[in-house]
């Protein structure tokens, strides 16, 4: 595995991959928060707000697609025991994050991973529809009560699924793989 030193940390490419995956999740959460807040608290929309909504919905969609792709790659070959692992070396020892069918909590790991994999494909579909509605309706997304409620409810469901998946992902890669070697 290719690794390089970054200050006190030694970082491998798989670690960078997992970190990029996490960063995309942060971008998604930020954009979803902006979209929900902007639509929820606004009663009238000027062109600037509409442009912001359109841009945020597009960024959310792209980030969701990339998030799904970066999440799926470690899952390819998962059932055959293929290991996708990253390691942090610091003063406290070596922390190994491993995504594998063999050493990931025996039962709960594969089950959780499968649930996450399954829900994850739903979310880009919801994000695409939200993006379509915002681009199609423009300022009506804010000013028309029914469009507004429709977009908001889809955003809430999208956010709920995203956070549910994110929580499972954090549990798998950060908690379930916690045992470390010094």
């Amino acid at each position: 595995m290719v690794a390089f030193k970054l200050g006190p940390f030694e970082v491998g490419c798989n670690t960078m991959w997992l970190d990029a995956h996490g960063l995309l999740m942060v971008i998604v959460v930020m954009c979803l928060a902006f979209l929900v807040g902007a639509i929820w608290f606004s009663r009238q929309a000027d062109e600037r707000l509409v442009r912001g909504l359109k841009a945020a919905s597009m960024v959310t969609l792209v980030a969701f697609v990339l998030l799904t792709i970066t999440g799926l790659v470690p899952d390819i070959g998962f059932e055959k025991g293929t290991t996708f692992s990253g390691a942090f070396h610091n003063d406290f020892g070596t922390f190994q994050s491993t995504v594998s069918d063999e050493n990931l909590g025996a039962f709960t790991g594969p089950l959780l991973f499968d649930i996450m994999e399954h829900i994850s494909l739903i979310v880009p579909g919801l994000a695409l529809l939200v993006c379509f509605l915002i681009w199609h309706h423009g300022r009506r997304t804010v000013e028309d009560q029914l469009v507004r409620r429709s977009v908001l409810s889809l955003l809430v469901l999208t956010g709920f699924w995203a956070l549910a998946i994110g929580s499972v992902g954090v549990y798998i890669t950060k908690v379930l793989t916690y045992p470390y070697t010094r």
Partner: protein
Amino acid sequence: MSTNVNRSSGEGGMDASPKVAAAFAAGTVYMWAECILRIWFSKGGDAVLRLWPQRAGDIAGMWLAMIVIGLVAYFALAAAWRKRSSVGTIPIWTIVLIVSAIVAPLLGEWGQAIGI
């Protein structure tokens, strides 16, 4: 910006234009496509028909299949409904989609401990 939106006269609900209705319907088809594909493959669907061999890449392949099915559904329905002024209402389509997005992933794991 499109203003291709119509208001219904009687019910107070907002009619969905054909493109919006087709988008909602395509989203619903996308959700259920995954459910059906998962149940089919977990019950012994032919790997050759999946267009990808066994496990490697099957998830990405299934995702691609869902996207294509959803896109085909969108363009087919938008074409089929293009002469209609509206198809259903946005609240109804939203409810159908939300129910699908919750139920379809759960039903997709029918009879499976850990899925495909």
